[in-house]
Protein backbone atom coordinates (compact mmCIF):
# COMPACT_ATOMS: atom_id res chain seq x y z
CA UNK A 1 0.00 0.00 0.00
CA UNK A 2 1.30 3.44 -0.91
CA UNK A 3 2.01 5.61 2.07
CA UNK A 4 0.07 8.86 2.31
CA UNK A 5 3.18 10.75 3.35
CA UNK A 6 6.77 9.60 3.26
CA UNK A 7 9.92 11.60 3.87
CA UNK A 8 13.53 10.57 3.98
CA UNK A 9 16.50 12.55 5.21
CA UNK A 10 14.59 15.80 4.90
CA UNK A 11 16.52 18.91 5.89
CA UNK A 12 15.78 22.61 5.63
CA UNK A 13 18.31 25.30 6.35
CA UNK A 14 17.32 28.98 6.36
CA UNK A 15 19.84 31.54 5.14
CA UNK A 16 22.53 28.87 5.12
CA UNK A 17 22.62 28.82 8.91
CA UNK A 18 19.44 28.16 10.85
CA UNK A 19 18.72 24.48 10.59
CA UNK A 20 14.96 24.03 10.92
CA UNK A 21 14.84 20.38 9.88
CA UNK A 22 17.73 18.05 10.43
CA UNK A 23 17.09 14.73 8.71
CA UNK A 24 13.42 13.91 9.12
CA UNK A 25 12.26 10.39 8.22
CA UNK A 26 8.55 9.98 8.48
CA UNK A 27 5.85 7.70 7.17
CA UNK A 28 2.12 8.20 7.48
CA UNK A 29 -0.35 5.50 6.44
CA UNK A 30 -3.42 6.23 4.37
CA UNK A 31 -6.57 7.25 6.21
CA UNK A 32 -4.61 7.76 9.39
CA UNK A 33 -4.87 10.72 11.73
CA UNK A 34 -1.28 11.72 12.35
CA UNK A 35 -0.30 14.19 15.06
CA UNK A 36 2.98 16.00 14.83
CA UNK A 37 4.11 17.33 18.20
CA UNK A 38 6.92 19.63 19.08
CA UNK A 39 7.84 22.71 21.06
CA UNK A 40 7.67 26.13 19.42
CA UNK A 41 10.38 26.54 16.81
CA UNK A 42 11.06 22.81 16.56
CA UNK A 43 10.37 22.63 12.82
CA UNK A 44 6.70 21.57 12.77
CA UNK A 45 5.50 24.35 10.51
CA UNK A 46 8.55 24.10 8.26
CA UNK A 47 7.85 20.43 7.63
CA UNK A 48 4.21 21.14 6.85
CA UNK A 49 5.12 23.92 4.44
CA UNK A 50 7.49 21.59 2.60
CA UNK A 51 4.89 18.83 2.44
CA UNK A 52 2.34 21.31 1.08
CA UNK A 53 4.81 22.41 -1.64
CA UNK A 54 5.22 25.97 -0.37
CA UNK A 55 8.95 25.69 -0.31
CA UNK A 56 11.65 23.24 -1.19
CA UNK A 57 13.66 21.20 1.25
CA UNK A 58 17.41 21.87 1.33
CA UNK A 59 18.03 18.14 0.93
CA UNK A 60 16.17 14.87 1.24
CA UNK A 61 12.90 13.77 -0.27
CA UNK A 62 9.23 14.01 0.54
CA UNK A 63 6.39 12.25 -1.22
CA UNK A 64 2.63 12.40 -0.94
CA UNK A 65 0.95 9.25 -2.26
CA UNK A 66 4.20 8.44 -4.01
CA UNK A 67 4.48 11.84 -5.75
CA UNK A 68 7.57 13.91 -5.07
CA UNK A 69 6.45 17.23 -3.57
CA UNK A 70 9.12 19.19 -5.42
CA UNK A 71 9.07 17.64 -8.88
CA UNK A 72 5.34 16.97 -9.02
CA UNK A 73 4.13 19.85 -6.91
CA UNK A 74 1.15 20.66 -9.11
CA UNK A 75 -0.24 17.14 -8.81
CA UNK A 76 0.37 17.13 -5.06
CA UNK A 77 -1.41 20.46 -4.67
CA UNK A 78 -4.45 19.11 -6.47
CA UNK A 79 -5.00 16.39 -3.89
CA UNK A 80 -4.28 18.11 -0.61
CA UNK A 81 -6.19 20.47 1.62
CA UNK A 82 -4.24 22.85 3.82
CA UNK A 83 -5.26 25.06 6.71
CA UNK A 84 -2.47 27.35 7.94
CA UNK A 85 -2.16 28.37 11.55
CA UNK A 86 -3.13 32.00 10.91
CA UNK A 87 -6.51 33.22 9.67
CA UNK A 88 -6.91 32.24 6.04
CA UNK A 89 -10.33 33.54 5.09
CA UNK A 90 -11.39 37.06 4.09
CA UNK A 91 -13.20 38.80 6.90
CA UNK A 92 -15.08 41.38 4.83
CA UNK A 93 -17.24 38.93 2.86
CA UNK A 94 -19.60 36.18 4.04
CA UNK A 95 -18.66 32.60 4.87
CA UNK A 96 -20.38 31.27 1.77
CA UNK A 97 -18.65 33.85 -0.44
CA UNK A 98 -15.30 32.73 0.97
CA UNK A 99 -16.10 29.16 0.01
CA UNK A 100 -17.23 30.27 -3.44
CA UNK A 101 -14.03 32.24 -4.08
CA UNK A 102 -11.87 29.40 -2.77
CA UNK A 103 -13.76 26.82 -4.83
CA UNK A 104 -12.87 28.85 -7.94
CA UNK A 105 -9.26 29.34 -6.89
CA UNK A 106 -8.90 25.61 -6.24
CA UNK A 107 -10.53 24.77 -9.55
CA UNK A 108 -13.61 22.90 -8.35
CA UNK A 109 -15.58 22.20 -11.58
CA UNK A 110 -18.54 24.53 -12.04
CA UNK A 111 -21.04 21.64 -12.06
CA UNK A 112 -19.93 20.47 -8.61
CA UNK A 113 -19.36 23.83 -6.94
CA UNK A 114 -22.75 24.26 -5.27
CA UNK A 115 -22.82 20.69 -4.01
CA UNK A 116 -19.25 20.82 -2.66
CA UNK A 117 -19.90 24.11 -0.89
CA UNK A 118 -23.06 22.71 0.71
CA UNK A 119 -21.19 19.57 1.77
CA UNK A 120 -18.37 21.59 3.31
CA UNK A 121 -20.80 23.88 5.14
CA UNK A 122 -22.70 20.95 6.61
CA UNK A 123 -19.55 18.95 7.41
CA UNK A 124 -18.32 21.84 9.55
CA UNK A 125 -21.75 22.72 10.95
CA UNK A 126 -21.85 26.23 9.54
CA UNK A 127 -25.39 26.22 8.11
CA UNK A 128 -26.63 28.97 10.38
CA UNK A 129 -23.77 31.40 9.89
CA UNK A 130 -22.91 30.86 6.23
CA UNK A 131 -24.59 34.10 5.09
CA UNK A 132 -22.98 36.22 7.79
CA UNK A 133 -19.87 38.36 7.35
CA UNK A 134 -16.87 36.43 8.64
CA UNK A 135 -15.80 39.32 10.87
CA UNK A 136 -18.84 38.54 13.05
CA UNK A 137 -17.71 34.91 13.56
CA UNK A 138 -16.25 33.52 16.77
CA UNK A 139 -12.76 32.02 16.64
CA UNK A 140 -14.13 28.49 16.47
CA UNK A 141 -16.51 29.33 13.61
CA UNK A 142 -13.72 31.00 11.65
CA UNK A 143 -11.54 27.95 12.08
CA UNK A 144 -14.33 25.65 10.95
CA UNK A 145 -14.86 27.84 7.89
CA UNK A 146 -11.15 27.58 7.11
CA UNK A 147 -11.31 23.82 7.36
CA UNK A 148 -14.48 23.83 5.23
CA UNK A 149 -12.55 25.71 2.54
CA UNK A 150 -9.90 22.99 2.59
CA UNK A 151 -12.56 20.29 2.18
CA UNK A 152 -13.87 21.77 -1.10
CA UNK A 153 -11.33 19.83 -3.15
CA UNK A 154 -12.19 16.53 -1.40
CA UNK A 155 -8.55 16.21 -0.37
CA UNK A 156 -6.81 12.87 0.03
CA UNK A 157 -4.63 14.47 2.70
CA UNK A 158 -5.75 17.26 4.96
CA UNK A 159 -2.94 19.30 6.51
CA UNK A 160 -3.85 21.30 9.61
CA UNK A 161 -1.28 23.58 11.21
CA UNK A 162 -2.22 24.02 14.87
CA UNK A 163 -5.93 23.64 14.07
CA UNK A 164 -7.26 24.68 17.46
CA UNK A 165 -4.70 27.21 18.63
CA UNK A 166 -6.27 30.00 20.63
CA UNK A 167 -9.71 28.39 20.81
CA UNK A 168 -11.64 27.84 24.02
CA UNK A 169 -12.29 24.22 25.07
CA UNK A 170 -15.84 24.07 23.70
CA UNK A 171 -14.76 25.51 20.34
CA UNK A 172 -11.88 23.03 20.22
CA UNK A 173 -14.30 20.22 20.88
CA UNK A 174 -16.64 21.44 18.13
CA UNK A 175 -13.79 21.62 15.63
CA UNK A 176 -12.67 18.09 16.45
CA UNK A 177 -16.15 16.64 16.45
CA UNK A 178 -16.72 18.01 12.96
CA UNK A 179 -13.34 16.73 11.81
CA UNK A 180 -13.90 13.28 13.28
CA UNK A 181 -17.32 12.99 11.65
CA UNK A 182 -15.89 14.11 8.30
CA UNK A 183 -13.01 11.68 8.67
CA UNK A 184 -15.35 8.75 9.33
CA UNK A 185 -17.19 9.50 6.13
CA UNK A 186 -14.36 10.33 3.76
CA UNK A 187 -11.34 8.26 4.81
CA UNK A 188 -9.08 11.25 4.35
CA UNK A 189 -5.59 11.16 5.81
CA UNK A 190 -5.28 13.93 8.40
CA UNK A 191 -1.89 15.34 9.31
CA UNK A 192 -1.90 17.96 12.05
CA UNK A 193 0.59 19.94 14.10
CA UNK A 194 -0.26 20.72 17.66
CA UNK A 195 1.08 21.28 21.09
CA UNK A 196 -2.13 20.33 22.80
CA UNK A 197 -1.25 16.87 24.13
CA UNK A 198 -4.84 15.91 24.91
CA UNK A 199 -5.81 16.44 21.25
CA UNK A 200 -3.02 14.26 20.00
CA UNK A 201 -3.98 11.65 22.59
CA UNK A 202 -7.71 11.64 21.82
CA UNK A 203 -7.84 12.11 18.09
CA UNK A 204 -4.70 10.69 16.53
CA UNK A 205 -3.80 7.17 15.47
CA UNK A 206 -0.11 7.91 15.40
CA UNK A 207 2.15 10.56 16.83
CA UNK A 208 5.64 11.81 16.05
CA UNK A 209 7.51 14.14 18.37
CA UNK A 210 9.98 16.56 16.82
CA UNK A 211 12.61 18.45 18.71
CA UNK A 212 15.26 20.71 17.21
CA UNK A 213 14.49 19.54 13.70
CA UNK A 214 14.66 15.82 14.45
CA UNK A 215 12.03 13.23 15.16
CA UNK A 216 12.84 12.01 18.63
CA UNK A 217 10.00 9.53 19.11
CA UNK A 218 7.04 8.15 17.20
CA UNK A 219 4.31 5.60 17.73
CA UNK A 220 0.68 5.28 18.74
CA UNK A 221 -0.38 7.33 21.76
CA UNK A 222 -0.47 4.10 23.82
CA UNK A 223 2.99 3.03 22.67
CA UNK A 224 4.46 6.39 23.52
CA UNK A 225 3.01 6.35 27.00
CA UNK A 226 4.07 2.79 27.60
CA UNK A 227 7.55 3.65 26.41
CA UNK A 228 8.08 5.52 29.65
CA UNK A 229 7.80 2.23 31.57
CA UNK A 230 6.20 4.14 34.35
CA UNK A 231 2.72 2.81 34.86
CA UNK A 232 1.72 2.34 38.47
CA UNK A 233 -1.11 0.24 39.86
CA UNK A 234 -2.24 1.51 43.23
CA UNK A 235 -4.23 -0.84 45.46
CA UNK A 236 -5.82 0.43 48.64
CA UNK A 237 -6.61 -2.07 51.32
CA UNK A 238 -9.55 -1.86 53.59
CA UNK A 239 -7.96 -0.19 56.61
CA UNK A 240 -9.66 -2.45 59.22
CA UNK A 241 -8.54 -5.43 57.24
CA UNK A 242 -5.04 -4.10 57.21
CA UNK A 243 -4.95 -3.76 60.99
CA UNK A 244 -6.03 -7.35 61.42
CA UNK A 245 -3.24 -8.67 59.31
CA UNK A 246 -0.01 -9.97 60.63
CA UNK A 247 2.09 -7.51 58.74
CA UNK A 248 5.42 -9.29 58.83
CA UNK A 249 4.11 -12.68 57.77
CA UNK A 250 1.29 -12.53 55.28
CA UNK A 251 1.94 -9.19 53.59
CA UNK A 252 5.59 -9.94 53.03
CA UNK A 253 4.72 -13.19 51.34
CA UNK A 254 2.06 -11.58 49.19
CA UNK A 255 4.43 -8.82 48.26
CA UNK A 256 7.06 -11.34 47.21
CA UNK A 257 4.54 -13.15 45.08
CA UNK A 258 3.51 -9.91 43.33
CA UNK A 259 7.11 -9.00 42.67
CA UNK A 260 7.69 -12.35 41.03
CA UNK A 261 4.88 -11.87 38.53
CA UNK A 262 5.71 -11.36 34.86
CA UNK A 263 5.21 -7.75 33.75
CA UNK A 264 5.78 -6.44 37.27
CA UNK A 265 9.00 -4.61 37.79
CA UNK A 266 8.66 -3.66 41.42
CA UNK A 267 6.14 -3.31 44.22
CA UNK A 268 6.12 -1.41 47.49
CA UNK A 269 3.80 -1.22 50.42
CA UNK A 270 3.13 2.25 51.75
CA UNK A 271 0.78 2.09 54.73
CA UNK A 272 -2.53 0.79 53.47
CA UNK A 273 -1.53 1.25 49.85
CA UNK A 274 0.34 -1.15 47.62
CA UNK A 275 2.14 0.45 44.66
CA UNK A 276 2.97 -1.91 41.82
CA UNK A 277 5.21 -0.71 39.02
CA UNK A 278 4.35 -2.38 35.73
CA UNK A 279 5.14 -1.97 32.08
CA UNK A 280 1.69 -2.64 30.71
CA UNK A 281 -1.04 -2.06 33.28
CA UNK A 282 -3.83 -3.41 31.17
CA UNK A 283 -2.16 -6.80 30.91
CA UNK A 284 -0.66 -6.88 34.40
CA UNK A 285 -3.80 -6.04 36.30
CA UNK A 286 -5.58 -9.41 35.93
CA UNK A 287 -2.42 -11.24 37.05
CA UNK A 288 -2.07 -9.04 40.11
CA UNK A 289 -5.70 -9.46 41.10
CA UNK A 290 -5.51 -13.20 40.73
CA UNK A 291 -2.35 -13.43 42.82
CA UNK A 292 -3.81 -11.34 45.63
CA UNK A 293 -7.07 -13.32 45.60
CA UNK A 294 -5.18 -16.58 45.94
CA UNK A 295 -3.36 -15.08 48.95
CA UNK A 296 -6.71 -14.18 50.45
CA UNK A 297 -6.02 -10.45 50.34
CA UNK A 298 -9.02 -8.21 49.80
CA UNK A 299 -8.76 -4.62 48.75
CA UNK A 300 -11.09 -1.72 48.47
CA UNK A 301 -9.97 0.17 45.40
CA UNK A 302 -7.59 -0.03 42.47
CA UNK A 303 -6.37 2.98 40.57
CA UNK A 304 -3.76 3.35 37.89
CA UNK A 305 -1.49 6.30 37.52
CA UNK A 306 -0.50 6.39 33.88
CA UNK A 307 2.09 8.60 32.36
CA UNK A 308 0.23 11.16 30.29
CA UNK A 309 1.28 12.34 26.88
CA UNK A 310 2.54 15.45 28.65
CA UNK A 311 5.04 13.25 30.47
CA UNK A 312 6.00 11.67 27.16
CA UNK A 313 6.44 15.07 25.55
CA UNK A 314 8.55 16.41 28.38
CA UNK A 315 10.65 13.29 28.40
CA UNK A 316 11.45 13.35 24.67
CA UNK A 317 11.16 16.98 23.64
CA UNK A 318 11.60 18.78 26.93
CA UNK A 319 14.61 20.77 28.04
CA UNK A 320 16.19 17.68 29.55
CA UNK A 321 16.01 15.74 26.32
CA UNK A 322 19.20 14.68 24.63
CA UNK A 323 17.87 15.87 21.28
CA UNK A 324 20.71 18.33 20.79
CA UNK A 325 23.43 15.71 20.90
CA UNK A 326 25.71 15.43 17.88
CA UNK A 327 23.83 17.46 15.31
CA UNK A 328 27.07 19.07 14.30
CA UNK A 329 26.04 22.69 14.71
Amino acid at each position, binding site marked *: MTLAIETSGLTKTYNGRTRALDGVDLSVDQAEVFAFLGPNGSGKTTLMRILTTQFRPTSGEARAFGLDVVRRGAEVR*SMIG*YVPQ*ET*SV*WLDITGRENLLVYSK*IYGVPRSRRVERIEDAISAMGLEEVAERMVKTYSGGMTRRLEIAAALLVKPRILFLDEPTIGLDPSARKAVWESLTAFKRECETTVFFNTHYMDEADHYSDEIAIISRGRIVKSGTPGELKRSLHGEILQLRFNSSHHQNQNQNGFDERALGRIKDLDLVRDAALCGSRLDIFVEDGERALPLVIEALRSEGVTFERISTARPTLDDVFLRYAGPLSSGRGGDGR
Partner: protein
Amino acid sequence: MTSTAEDSLREMFAMIELEMRRLRHDRTEIYTRAIQPILWLAVFGSVMSEVRGIPTGGIPYIDYITPGVLLQSTIFVSVFYGLTIVWERETGILKRLLVAPASRSATVIGRSIASGVRAVVQALIIFPVAILLGVKFVPNPIYIVAAFIVLFLVSGGFAAISIFVASLMKTRERFMGLGQALIMPLFFASNALYPIELMPPALQYVALVNPLTYAVDAVRGLLISGDLSNLAVDVAAILVFDVLIFAVASVSFKKIIE
Protein backbone atom coordinates in the same frame (compact mmCIF):
# COMPACT_ATOMS: atom_id res chain seq x y z
CA MET B 1 -6.39 17.22 -16.11
CA THR B 2 -6.48 20.98 -16.34
CA SER B 3 -3.53 23.00 -17.47
CA THR B 4 -1.76 25.53 -15.31
CA ALA B 5 -2.80 28.29 -17.71
CA GLU B 6 -6.43 27.43 -17.20
CA ASP B 7 -5.97 27.27 -13.44
CA SER B 8 -4.18 30.59 -13.50
CA LEU B 9 -6.89 32.27 -15.53
CA ARG B 10 -9.52 30.96 -13.17
CA GLU B 11 -7.63 32.25 -10.16
CA MET B 12 -7.40 35.69 -11.78
CA PHE B 13 -11.15 35.79 -12.30
CA ALA B 14 -11.74 34.56 -8.75
CA MET B 15 -9.58 37.45 -7.49
CA ILE B 16 -11.61 39.96 -9.48
CA GLU B 17 -14.80 38.44 -8.13
CA LEU B 18 -13.41 38.68 -4.61
CA GLU B 19 -12.75 42.42 -5.04
CA MET B 20 -16.22 43.02 -6.44
CA ARG B 21 -17.82 41.15 -3.56
CA ARG B 22 -15.79 43.13 -1.04
CA LEU B 23 -16.86 46.36 -2.69
CA ARG B 24 -20.50 45.30 -2.63
CA HIS B 25 -20.33 44.80 1.13
CA ASP B 26 -18.44 47.97 1.94
CA ARG B 27 -17.98 50.94 -0.35
CA THR B 28 -16.92 53.45 2.30
CA GLU B 29 -13.32 53.35 1.21
CA ILE B 30 -14.18 54.15 -2.40
CA TYR B 31 -16.19 57.20 -1.28
CA THR B 32 -13.63 58.56 1.15
CA ARG B 33 -10.88 58.08 -1.39
CA ALA B 34 -12.91 60.13 -3.88
CA ILE B 35 -12.75 63.23 -1.69
CA GLN B 36 -9.15 64.16 -2.40
CA PRO B 37 -9.32 63.97 -6.21
CA ILE B 38 -12.59 65.88 -6.19
CA LEU B 39 -10.85 68.63 -4.20
CA TRP B 40 -8.05 68.68 -6.76
CA LEU B 41 -10.58 69.34 -9.46
CA ALA B 42 -12.99 71.59 -7.59
CA VAL B 43 -10.46 73.75 -5.72
CA PHE B 44 -7.05 73.50 -7.40
CA GLY B 45 -8.53 73.16 -10.89
CA SER B 46 -11.00 76.04 -10.56
CA VAL B 47 -8.47 78.42 -9.02
CA MET B 48 -5.72 77.65 -11.52
CA SER B 49 -8.22 78.04 -14.35
CA GLU B 50 -8.49 81.70 -13.37
CA VAL B 51 -4.70 82.15 -13.38
CA ARG B 52 -4.29 80.99 -16.98
CA GLY B 53 -0.53 80.78 -16.40
CA ILE B 54 -0.07 77.30 -17.81
CA PRO B 55 -0.13 76.68 -21.56
CA THR B 56 -2.75 73.97 -22.01
CA GLY B 57 -3.31 74.29 -25.72
CA GLY B 58 -6.60 76.06 -25.41
CA ILE B 59 -8.13 73.55 -23.01
CA PRO B 60 -9.67 74.90 -19.74
CA TYR B 61 -7.24 74.05 -16.92
CA ILE B 62 -9.74 71.99 -14.96
CA ASP B 63 -10.30 69.86 -18.05
CA TYR B 64 -6.53 69.65 -18.57
CA ILE B 65 -5.86 68.14 -15.15
CA THR B 66 -8.88 65.80 -15.05
CA PRO B 67 -7.02 62.85 -16.68
CA GLY B 68 -4.13 63.26 -14.23
CA VAL B 69 -6.47 63.45 -11.25
CA LEU B 70 -8.39 60.37 -12.41
CA LEU B 71 -5.10 58.52 -12.76
CA GLN B 72 -3.79 59.72 -9.44
CA SER B 73 -6.89 58.46 -7.66
CA THR B 74 -6.71 55.05 -9.34
CA ILE B 75 -3.00 54.78 -8.62
CA PHE B 76 -3.65 55.52 -4.97
CA VAL B 77 -5.95 52.52 -4.90
CA SER B 78 -3.36 50.34 -6.64
CA VAL B 79 -0.37 51.41 -4.62
CA PHE B 80 -2.15 50.83 -1.34
CA TYR B 81 -3.34 47.48 -2.58
CA GLY B 82 0.03 46.19 -1.44
CA LEU B 83 -1.24 46.76 2.09
CA THR B 84 -3.81 44.05 1.47
CA ILE B 85 -0.97 41.76 0.47
CA VAL B 86 0.98 42.66 3.60
CA TRP B 87 -2.13 41.91 5.65
CA GLU B 88 -2.68 38.64 3.83
CA ARG B 89 0.93 37.74 4.51
CA GLU B 90 0.41 38.30 8.22
CA THR B 91 -2.67 36.10 8.01
CA GLY B 92 -2.55 32.72 6.32
CA ILE B 93 -4.25 33.67 3.05
CA LEU B 94 -1.06 33.94 1.00
CA LYS B 95 0.13 30.56 2.23
CA ARG B 96 -3.14 29.15 1.12
CA LEU B 97 -2.95 30.73 -2.31
CA LEU B 98 0.49 29.16 -2.73
CA VAL B 99 -1.08 25.75 -2.24
CA ALA B 100 -3.71 26.44 -4.93
CA PRO B 101 -3.21 24.89 -8.37
CA ALA B 102 -2.53 28.21 -10.14
CA SER B 103 1.02 29.42 -10.77
CA ARG B 104 2.59 32.06 -8.54
CA SER B 105 2.73 34.63 -11.28
CA ALA B 106 -1.01 34.10 -11.73
CA THR B 107 -1.47 35.06 -8.09
CA VAL B 108 0.49 38.28 -8.66
CA ILE B 109 -1.17 39.14 -11.95
CA GLY B 110 -4.60 38.14 -10.64
CA ARG B 111 -4.25 40.38 -7.61
CA SER B 112 -2.97 43.23 -9.78
CA ILE B 113 -5.84 42.94 -12.19
CA ALA B 114 -8.30 42.75 -9.31
CA SER B 115 -6.79 45.94 -7.98
CA GLY B 116 -7.12 47.48 -11.43
CA VAL B 117 -10.82 46.68 -11.38
CA ARG B 118 -11.17 48.32 -7.99
CA ALA B 119 -9.31 51.35 -9.29
CA VAL B 120 -11.62 51.67 -12.28
CA VAL B 121 -14.61 51.64 -9.94
CA GLN B 122 -12.88 54.47 -8.08
CA ALA B 123 -12.53 56.46 -11.30
CA LEU B 124 -16.17 55.82 -12.17
CA ILE B 125 -17.16 57.70 -9.03
CA ILE B 126 -15.04 60.72 -9.86
CA PHE B 127 -16.09 60.82 -13.51
CA PRO B 128 -19.67 62.13 -12.97
CA VAL B 129 -18.39 64.65 -10.43
CA ALA B 130 -16.03 66.00 -13.09
CA ILE B 131 -18.98 66.39 -15.47
CA LEU B 132 -20.87 68.31 -12.78
CA LEU B 133 -17.84 70.58 -12.36
CA GLY B 134 -18.13 71.46 -16.04
CA VAL B 135 -15.38 69.30 -17.50
CA LYS B 136 -16.16 68.65 -21.17
CA PHE B 137 -15.33 65.12 -22.22
CA VAL B 138 -15.06 63.99 -25.83
CA PRO B 139 -18.63 62.83 -26.50
CA ASN B 140 -17.63 59.47 -27.92
CA PRO B 141 -18.44 56.39 -25.81
CA ILE B 142 -15.73 54.35 -27.53
CA TYR B 143 -13.10 56.91 -26.51
CA ILE B 144 -14.39 56.88 -22.94
CA VAL B 145 -14.32 53.08 -22.73
CA ALA B 146 -10.81 53.11 -24.20
CA ALA B 147 -9.72 55.66 -21.59
CA PHE B 148 -10.97 53.40 -18.82
CA ILE B 149 -9.08 50.48 -20.34
CA VAL B 150 -5.92 52.62 -20.17
CA LEU B 151 -6.72 53.47 -16.53
CA PHE B 152 -7.13 49.78 -15.83
CA LEU B 153 -3.85 48.82 -17.50
CA VAL B 154 -1.88 51.46 -15.62
CA SER B 155 -3.52 50.64 -12.30
CA GLY B 156 -2.71 46.96 -12.73
CA GLY B 157 0.93 47.88 -13.29
CA PHE B 158 1.06 50.07 -10.21
CA ALA B 159 -0.60 47.33 -8.16
CA ALA B 160 2.23 45.04 -9.27
CA ILE B 161 4.74 47.70 -8.12
CA SER B 162 2.88 47.70 -4.85
CA ILE B 163 3.11 43.91 -4.55
CA PHE B 164 6.82 44.20 -5.32
CA VAL B 165 7.23 46.83 -2.59
CA ALA B 166 5.16 44.67 -0.22
CA SER B 167 7.57 41.79 -0.78
CA LEU B 168 10.44 44.03 0.32
CA MET B 169 8.68 45.89 3.13
CA LYS B 170 7.05 43.17 5.09
CA THR B 171 5.36 45.39 7.67
CA ARG B 172 2.49 47.81 7.24
CA GLU B 173 4.27 50.78 8.74
CA ARG B 174 7.21 50.61 6.37
CA PHE B 175 4.89 50.04 3.51
CA MET B 176 2.75 53.08 4.35
CA GLY B 177 5.84 55.26 4.40
CA LEU B 178 7.07 54.12 1.03
CA GLY B 179 3.61 54.25 -0.52
CA GLN B 180 3.22 57.90 0.42
CA ALA B 181 6.72 58.70 -0.79
CA LEU B 182 6.01 57.14 -4.17
CA ILE B 183 2.75 58.62 -5.36
CA MET B 184 3.09 62.38 -5.06
CA PRO B 185 6.54 62.60 -6.72
CA LEU B 186 5.28 60.47 -9.59
CA PHE B 187 2.29 62.77 -9.91
CA PHE B 188 4.37 65.95 -9.90
CA ALA B 189 7.03 64.50 -12.18
CA SER B 190 4.52 63.85 -14.93
CA ASN B 191 2.43 65.88 -17.32
CA ALA B 192 -0.61 65.55 -15.06
CA LEU B 193 -0.67 69.21 -13.91
CA TYR B 194 1.54 71.00 -16.48
CA PRO B 195 3.19 70.22 -19.83
CA ILE B 196 6.58 68.56 -19.61
CA GLU B 197 8.17 71.45 -21.51
CA LEU B 198 7.69 73.67 -18.45
CA MET B 199 9.87 71.43 -16.27
CA PRO B 200 13.58 71.88 -15.61
CA PRO B 201 15.56 69.61 -17.98
CA ALA B 202 16.53 67.05 -15.32
CA LEU B 203 12.94 66.59 -14.33
CA GLN B 204 11.95 66.25 -17.97
CA TYR B 205 14.04 63.07 -18.17
CA VAL B 206 12.29 61.71 -15.07
CA ALA B 207 8.95 62.52 -16.65
CA LEU B 208 9.96 60.63 -19.78
CA VAL B 209 10.52 57.38 -17.88
CA ASN B 210 7.50 57.96 -15.65
CA PRO B 211 4.74 55.62 -16.83
CA LEU B 212 2.22 58.11 -15.52
CA THR B 213 3.26 60.58 -18.25
CA TYR B 214 2.23 58.17 -21.00
CA ALA B 215 -0.97 57.26 -19.20
CA VAL B 216 -1.95 60.90 -18.73
CA ASP B 217 -1.18 61.62 -22.37
CA ALA B 218 -3.32 58.70 -23.55
CA VAL B 219 -6.24 59.47 -21.26
CA ARG B 220 -6.09 63.18 -22.07
CA GLY B 221 -6.18 62.39 -25.78
CA LEU B 222 -9.13 60.07 -25.38
CA LEU B 223 -11.22 62.02 -22.89
CA ILE B 224 -10.41 65.71 -23.42
CA SER B 225 -8.55 66.74 -26.58
CA GLY B 226 -9.59 63.95 -28.92
CA ASP B 227 -6.03 64.00 -30.27
CA LEU B 228 -4.98 60.38 -30.67
CA SER B 229 -1.71 60.94 -32.53
CA ASN B 230 0.41 59.67 -29.58
CA LEU B 231 -1.98 56.92 -28.49
CA ALA B 232 -0.07 54.01 -29.99
CA VAL B 233 3.22 55.09 -28.41
CA ASP B 234 1.53 55.73 -25.06
CA VAL B 235 -0.21 52.36 -24.96
CA ALA B 236 2.99 50.60 -26.05
CA ALA B 237 4.90 52.32 -23.22
CA ILE B 238 2.22 51.28 -20.71
CA LEU B 239 2.28 47.68 -21.90
CA VAL B 240 6.08 47.51 -21.66
CA PHE B 241 5.81 48.90 -18.14
CA ASP B 242 3.15 46.31 -17.23
CA VAL B 243 5.08 43.35 -18.58
CA LEU B 244 8.31 44.42 -16.88
CA ILE B 245 6.74 45.07 -13.52
CA PHE B 246 4.60 41.91 -13.58
CA ALA B 247 7.77 39.91 -14.19
CA VAL B 248 9.69 41.64 -11.39
CA ALA B 249 6.77 41.32 -8.96
CA SER B 250 6.26 37.63 -9.77
CA VAL B 251 9.91 36.89 -9.07
CA SER B 252 10.04 38.92 -5.86
CA PHE B 253 6.74 37.46 -4.71
CA LYS B 254 8.59 34.33 -3.66
CA LYS B 255 10.34 36.39 -1.01
CA ILE B 256 7.10 37.45 0.60
CA ILE B 257 6.33 33.93 1.77
CA GLU B 258 9.51 33.10 3.63
